């Protein structure tokens, strides 16, 4: 059996360019996984997620009338927790219940010298906002974040 070439292994999260800001995209077999990976993409805007130790947990609850607004709420909740707790997050566990999202985010206090944050995310926006399944049935969720 031939090993998969690196470019054929699907990335679980991605960034896409958008003028002076940056797009974050999560891809997964379930909507929950895609939301978790979008959160990893958010962290990756700031620093390498692998450099963030998942030692402390923070619960997050969001409510919104549809999936797209819920994605933005989810990412903005993480931005808020990062700003007020002065933490970075690298692991996430998301569950949906009707129009609400219940999650746990794991991370650690930010250490500027070690994490070398590139930017401070101001917030997730509704630009290029999308939550849908692609032709292969994978959930692809994305939006642009303001940096």
């Amino acid at each position: 059996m031939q090993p998969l070439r690196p470019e054929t292994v699907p990335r679980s999260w991605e960034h896409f360019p958008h003028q002076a800001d940056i797009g974050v995209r999560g891809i997964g077999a379930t909507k929950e996984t895609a939301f978790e990976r979008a959160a990893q993409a958010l962290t990756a805007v700031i620093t390498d997620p692998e450099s963030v130790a998942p030692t402390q947990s923070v619960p997050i609850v969001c409510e919104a009338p549809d999936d797209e607004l819920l994605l933005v709420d989810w990412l903005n909740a993480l931005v808020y927790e990062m700003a007020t707790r002065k933490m970075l997050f690298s692991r996430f566990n998301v569950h949906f219940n009707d129009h609400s999202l219940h999650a746990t985010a794991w991370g650690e206090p930010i250490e500027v010298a070690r994490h070398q944050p590139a930017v401070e995310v101001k917030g997730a926006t509704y630009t290029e906002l999308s939550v849908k399944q692609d032709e292969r049935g994978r959930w692809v969720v994305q939006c642009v974040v303001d940096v």
Partner: protein
Amino acid sequence: MDLNQLKRPHEDLEFIEEQGCMAGAKPDCVSDYAKKRQQDEMGTLGSGNHYLEAQQVVQLFDTAAASVFGFRGGDLVVSIHCGSRGLGHQIGTEFLKSMAISAARYHIELPDRELASAPINSEVGQAYLGAMRAGINCALANRQIVTHLVRLVFADFLPQATLSLLYDVSHNTCKVEEHVIDGMPTRLFVHRKGATRAFGPAHPDIPPSLRSVGQPVLIGGTMGTASYVLVGMKESMSLAFGSACHGAGRSMSQHQALKQWHGRDVVKEVATRGILIRSPSLRRVAEAAPGAYKDVSEVVDAADEANLARKVARLEPLVCVKG
């Protein structure tokens, strides 16, 4: 240092837009989340294109205006570029959601949710107006705190120096102003995003001591190039509702800049030109590399040629501090 000895803050008010306090602010319309997000950020610059620079006046284009503004060739200037920080971001986040959800109630069809809006006289419209004005005040207060901290540093190292405020101009605002439309004075809500006011001579909103020449317009460049002081022109009132650009603008995203430059290399390169950079993160330096921005001199020349603002002085950085 006895803070009561520092009298400058009272003298500054005349040279701050809105005399340092935007009317119509409603702090009660700002959520507790926003206030909590802000509480540890007062007195900080933030990241992105925000900075504090010590600059030297290297060229004068309008010596008369420079004299009125109070500086000469060779003078040291400290430029502070920062805003309302987390409070402003949180206000934007929360009201964007409120208006996106309430749009249908006001029979507003949104072709794109990012265009979320509400009638100005609706409950959410009035709440946003009050909160946004509170955000402007937070930014004015934040820059006053940073100014005060700069004065403390100078008092320690250069006690013979006098730091007087040239002007504090806001950007990313919505203000109620009177402009002439089809010959009629008309009350307008003027949104300026990436732009600032640039009122021409004799405008009553300009401090009396500056009114003869016009409002100072500050266009910041990059850590490795230059910034400019300009003055608002009368023509700008009819051309652009008395506005000018706020900066050069990026020529590429932060993401692309991080791929193209390493922070350490940027620090070394500008150091060869005598510019000292201080930043807690080298990645932050890379995303603000001079090459990631448009040519500020070309942008300023365009603003001058378009009669939006006239060049007064070119400032070149000596020390750049990133948040």
